[in-house]
């Protein structure tokens, strides 16, 4: 997957992370959105028996979109951990915020609902994994 030029044009900062380093910590504050420029990132959720991998993201994927689109200063729902060396770009939050706020109400409801459904599905997945002791 490649980076869309329009996405790359609003990257305001680039940061490298070594293997296994924490890019975003679950429960921490912040609503920045990052895009993966190089490498892979594992999205993990804390469970009673350690960290559970939810999915693996690759180049062009976004990290932290859920919290940004909720716009309610919620803590980070999951952790993002480098799976090998990773280069991420931080997107211009002000510009994105302006874009988001200018969208029609029903469209915002549609996208926010999608984010909520994803959050609920992750919670369900974690509950099931804990119940069946899968890792």
């Amino acid at each position, binding site marked *: 997957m490649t980076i869309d030029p329009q996405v790359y044009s609003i990257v305001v900062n680039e940061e490298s992370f070594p293997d296994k380093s924490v890019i975003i910590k679950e429960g921490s504050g912040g609503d920045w959105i990052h895009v993966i420029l190089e490498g892979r990132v594992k999205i993990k959720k804390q469970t009673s028996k350690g960290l559970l991998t939810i999915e693996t993201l690759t180049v062009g994927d976004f990290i932290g979109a859920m919290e940004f689109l909720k716009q309610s200063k919620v803590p980070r729902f999951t952790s993002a951990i480098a799976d090998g060396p990773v280069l991420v770009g931080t997107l211009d939050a002000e510009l994105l915020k302006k874009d988001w706020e200018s*969208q029609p109400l029903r*469209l915002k*409801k*549609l996208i926010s609902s999608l984010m909520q*459904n994803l959050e609920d599905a992750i919670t369900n997945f974690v509950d099931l*994994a804990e119940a069946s002791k899968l890792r």
Partner: protein
Amino acid sequence: MKTEGKIPPVVRLQYVSGDLIIKEGDFGLSIYEIISGKVGIFVDSSGTEIQVATLDPGMIIGEMSFLTGTSSPRSASARALEDCCLEAWHPNMISTVYKKMPIILGLIAGQSLKSLARMNKTISGYNSKKRKDEIKQIQQSSDRWSSRRSFYRKEFDKECVYRPVNSPKSLKLIGRIKNISRGGMQMVAKTSNSLDYSHVPGDKFFASVYLKPGQQVNMTAKIVKLQKGESAGTISMGMAFTHMTQEDQKRLGFFLMP
């Protein structure tokens, strides 16, 4: 108000508890916002409806088909869990604003959509396995139940009225009781009943039948064994009584006496 053939971009719809709002596999692009009431999201797993989510007012349903495009059928069913009011958005209305959305927001939505689809598939897989284990356990107990029941049952062929225990009283499904005993009965119903309302082992129903004129018996029974009926388009359910008043038990007892 006349709409002169045009479909309004937004309409309000009322549903009663148990109503199917969206059917998995159907093609449709309308999006619904829940204005009042609760809606359950179900996915089919080997013929069994498994509830994967409960949605509250303010939440949206049907967005998956819209976001994935016209070629994708509905990925889940939505059913009113109580009386509901929904606002239906015409796909053309939402499509116009969606297409004008900044590309980055579109990419974020696309990524989230893929993650959600993958997550729902995994959840459905886990639930399906759990359900299969439960059915296996029920099957084992039903075999024991069938052998016990066979000694005391009376052949019978009467129409009965039944409905799922959590459905509105106004709902009347028609079945036919083929035999009955102190512990349970065999009921045959149209397969179409099971398309609108879950009919799987473990499901409980209220049922009423006239044993003889003036001798009505009401009972609560759960499905312990489910198979195709002898006639096309029918299902046959082995059902165990889970509740019956003492008076109805007596009535049934006298009816079963030789």
